[in-house]
């Protein structure tokens, strides 16, 4: 039966090509849109994901992590009195202007962390070092944004927030979901770059919970001690930020819609071609039935054809998606292609093609074997 499915599939090459183009188009669309969605999920809150903080204290009612506003540092001692609070480190995240060599201005987000702590630090350092940030007016930027920011080398001096800034390190792959890159520096330097902030201010406190306490526990106690502030667990801050950027801005929904569209296109195209193939081979199916094949054997042939088309189409699609994904990594909208998605898409492809076979299977059930004696 499998031989028949395979041979029939390749017998009509034009139809096979049409089917495969449909499948490949649909799968590539699905893979790319979903890959974009995943990378949106990833980049939208990477600064939270990598913070290593257990809890965040923020001014009330912030929409997302990039929307914090300054608050008085003086509450820190209160936080430290709460049982289970091991560290409460200040952290700045603020939007500031960056001057390009051409004189044009780009908005960036300065991220200032405590050099003596271990929270809120940049990750994936590929050149220079965090220690170099102990010097005044020094920053670390990401390689991806070199061109955008007019940075070419370590040691280069640029202008941020009207102050000089010397590039002392590069990270790799710390993207910003917005068009404004993150610029890492020490908390002390960040204060200088943030207009209107003084020694007595911070934007967040990163809280490290002591061993033996859970973040949820400490969050409750902190909330009682500091009712005027909002306390988030790292996960809460993560999902708040993600939800905002990916869902509330519509960016993520658009990609998901794209993926769903791909699925619909795929099902329609594949259903069409598989149905046309079934109708074309109706006499053969009738003959098979006359020869004693049960309906199950006929379904087997139709489903095997669908599955074979799915696997062949998937092979092309994953290759294309892989190259697109590789090519996109340096750009602004990287397309993630984790193995789970690749594997899931194979199942989806088979499911899609099997689903598209349903009307063909219904058709096959109605074949009257007596047709074989006619004409």
């Amino acid at each position, binding site marked *: 039966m499998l*031989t*028949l499915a395979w*041979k029939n599939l390749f*017998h009509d090459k034009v139809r096979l090509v049409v089917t495969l183009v449909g499948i490949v188009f649909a799968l590539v669309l699905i893979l790319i849109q979903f890959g974009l969605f995943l990378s949106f999920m990833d980049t939208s809150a990477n600064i939270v994901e990598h913070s290593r903080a257990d809890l965040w204290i923020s001014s009330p009612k912030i929409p997302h992590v990039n929307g914090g506003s300054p608050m008085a540092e003086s509450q820190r001692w209160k936080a430290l009195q709460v049982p289970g609070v091991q560290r409460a480190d200040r952290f700045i995240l603020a939007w500031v202007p960056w001057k390009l060599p051409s004189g044009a201005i780009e908005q960036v987000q300065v991220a200032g962390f405590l050099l003596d702590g271990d929270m809120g630090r940049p990750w994936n350092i590929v050149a220079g070092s965090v220690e170099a940030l102990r010097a005044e007016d020094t920053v670390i930027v990401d390689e991806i944004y070199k061109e955008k920011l007019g940075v070419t080398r370590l040691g280069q001096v640029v202008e941020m927030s009207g102050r000089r800034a010397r590039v002392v390190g590069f990270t790799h792959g710390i993207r910003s979901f917005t068009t404004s890159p993150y610029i890492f520096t020490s908390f002390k330097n960040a204060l200088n770059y943030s207009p209107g902030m003084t020694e007595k201010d911070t934007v967040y406190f990163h809280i490290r919970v002591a061993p033996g306490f859970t973040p949820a526990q400490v969050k409750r106690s902190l909330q009682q001690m500091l009712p005027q502030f909002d306390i988030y667990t790292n996960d809460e801050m993560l999902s708040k930020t993600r939800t905002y950027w990916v869902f509330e801005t519509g960016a993520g929904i658009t990609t998901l819609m794209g993926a769903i569209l791909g699925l619909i296109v795929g099902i329609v195209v594949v259903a069409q071609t598989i149905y046309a193939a079934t109708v074309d081979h109706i006499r*053969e199916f009738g003959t098979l039935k*006359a020869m*004693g094949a049960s*309906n199950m054997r006929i379904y087997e042939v139709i489903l095997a054809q669908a599955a074979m088309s799915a696997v062949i189409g998937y092979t092309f699609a994953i290759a294309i998606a892989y190259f697109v994904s590789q090519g996109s990594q340096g750009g602004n909208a990287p397309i993630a292609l984790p193995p789970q998605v690749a594997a899931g898409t194979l199942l989806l492809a088979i499911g899609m093609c099997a689903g598209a076979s349903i009307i063909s299977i219904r058709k096959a059930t109605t074949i009257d074997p007596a047709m*074989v*004696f006619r004409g």
Partner: protein
Amino acid sequence: MIEIRNLVKTYGKGSAAVHALNGVDFDVAAGEVVMLMGPSGSGKTTLLSAMGCILQATSGSIQIDGREIVGLPESKLPRIRLEHFGFIFQGFNLFPALTARENVELSLKLKGVSSSQCRRRATELLEQVGLGDKLKTHPADLSGGQKQRIAIARALAGDPPIILADEPTAALDSHSGQTVMELLTALARQRQRAVVVVTHDNRVLHYADRTVHIADGRIANHFEEGRTAA
């Protein structure tokens, strides 16, 4: 082998009803070659399909090896066809994507014969119908007579006790028609297979043990034919 009593088949209902078979009595003994003749529309194909379990009769009785099949649920019929019948059609009904050998193998595979056995049996049968050199040829590249010979090999492949053929020579020139009939009857006799052939062609009648005439859905007369040519 097959005993048909008072078989009725009516297509459609009410004023549109067509009475294709009006009480047919017909027997086929093991190993005999029977020709079924009659004018167009007399019910030959209907009778053949009913005894081959391809068509549900309206009433009457068909017993195959003593087992009643009229009124059996549709789902039981494929198995009976698989075990008892080999079919040969006027239009060949080969699978165009498959080679000659794969076409024959397919009917063996339906019976659950292992791949290597399938291959050996199919090759053997194609050699017997004189197509030993066409094993890997597709039907499109063969003549009508050659296609029908593949169909004969396919019908015989699963070793069914009964071969049913509906006008197997109608699409062939007379020489190929003779060859096909000769092969079919010779191979069937050699294996003790019963064969029922619907035909219009008087020139092939001498291959039969017996010829049955049908008209207006009734058996008209029976008479024995000598086996002179066989």
